[in-house]
């Protein structure tokens, strides 16, 4: 049996994800696959993604992988990364395209005129290492303010590390590597597992049941990223 299947729908490079999984789970059978049957039979599924969301959605359809991904997201440990997180939502303003609709909410672009506190221009894509504020306990009233406001302002940072098992052993505010121009706005604030700031808070990790999704790239985030992947391959939701 396959321990971890990495969904290959022909977009970009999945080598990095595969290599990082091999590093944290040297005895597991890990396979990069575009075969719906392999994905259906794997114990865990990683759903990565790079490039533009309309292309990713189209390729997923063309290769007949939509149902396999939907099914996996329903019933086994499932990790969405970057566009793989974004595709879980209902809609993206990138190309005005529908996502898989597993999670309610939309995907929107960073504004093009962002400035930091010193007045320097913030570039898009948001590229590089940023701090990830893990959410410790759900606090719906504060989370609502964050999830619905593009202006942000809602700070969820209680100072406590996140309670989700995938944060196990990862320090609060640890830095992860990001490269993206769009981010998710979940409708249900209780899903939010982490935020990052650019310059306002945006959601960078969500979870529901057997599902976890991250905007950053754990496979490229050195120690903290490998720890998250290790937590994923050991996770039994």
């Amino acid at each position, binding site marked *: 049996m396959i321990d971890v299947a990495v969904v290959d729908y022909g*977009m*970009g*490079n999945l*080598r*990095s994800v595969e*290599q*990082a999984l*091999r*590093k944290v789970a040297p005895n597991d059978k890990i396979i990069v696959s575009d075969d719906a049957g392999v994905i259906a039979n794997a114990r865990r599924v990683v759903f990565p993604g*790079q*490039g*533009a969301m309309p292309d990713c959605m189209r390729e997923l359809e063309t290769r007949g992988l939509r149902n396999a991904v939907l099914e996996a997201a329903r019933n086994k440990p499932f990790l969405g990364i970057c566009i793989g997180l974004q595709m879980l939502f209902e809609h993206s303003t990138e190309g005005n395209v529908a996502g898989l609709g597993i999670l309610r909410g939309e995907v929107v672009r960073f504004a*093009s005129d962002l400035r*930091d506190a010193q007045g*320097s*221009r*913030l*570039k*898009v*894509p*948001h*590229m*590089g*290492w*940023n*701090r990830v504020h893990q959410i410790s306990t759900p606090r719906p009233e504060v989370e609502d303010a964050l999830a619905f406001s593009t202006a942000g302002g809602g700070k969820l940072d209680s100072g406590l590390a996140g309670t989700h098992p995938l944060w196990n052993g990862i320090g609060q505010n640890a*830095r992860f*590597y*990001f*490269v*993206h121009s769009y981010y998710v706005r979940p409708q249900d604030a209780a899903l939010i597992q982490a935020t990052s*700031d*650019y*310059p306002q808070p945006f959601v960078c990790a969500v979870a529901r049941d057997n599902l976890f999704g991250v905007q950053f790239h754990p*496979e*490229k*985030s*050195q120690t903290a*990223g*490998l720890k998250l992947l290790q937590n994923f391959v050991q996770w039994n939701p």
Partner: protein
Amino acid sequence: MLAKRIIPCLDVTAGRVVKGVSFVELRDAGDPVEIARRYDEQGADELTFLDITASSDDRGIIFRIIEQVASQVFIPLTVGGGVREVGDVRNLLNAGADKVSINTSAVLNPQLVADAAGRYGSQCIVVAIDAKQTGTGCWEVFTHGGRKATGLDAVKWAKKMQGLGAGEILLTSMDRDGQKNGFDLPLTRAVTDALEIPVIASGGVGNLQHLADGVKQGGADAVLAASIFHFGEYTVQQAKQFMATQGIEVRL
């Protein structure tokens, strides 16, 4: 907040890391895989490999190096040098590169940048620009490792590359490369102010203050250096600690 990145650059030829002065006089700096691991341990935010092999004979070497590095080092890897077609981009990504840097071929065939970004996403397409000052506030783009003038204005060219889908610009001052007297700050500032996408400053780092200046005065999103790290003058960690004391956000 997002950290400013420090990127050690490894110029690779015949399977070795080398470093030259103004693109000539090469000096051996060691084994690329070993050096990559060392910088990773020191906290490098990314690594850039430039394949400066003149002939196409040794082309396969860079793929083997990237494969080896990518299986051991889990930070972003950029690879450039000799990228001529979309197939080259694919092969480098498959070998384990996260981003591919395009320089001369972008000038000869700008559509390559659009095609590669369209196929693999802007996030993995870096356009490298080698620029030389031609007057006050004027810089010209050079290609073929700095040997060929193009007549293109560096700032306008950078904007054009952004428009075609480049996700990032790697900007090297040929006047400063290997001179150790600091980045060309007016060039860096001119390009970074003109663009929405991140700019990596390169060429001329001789000490840690130069790195800080590239960010604070040049406005760079990332700073790239080679010889100060290769020959043991400073570690990446020392560079980050110094930048932090200057009030720059870094990943420590």
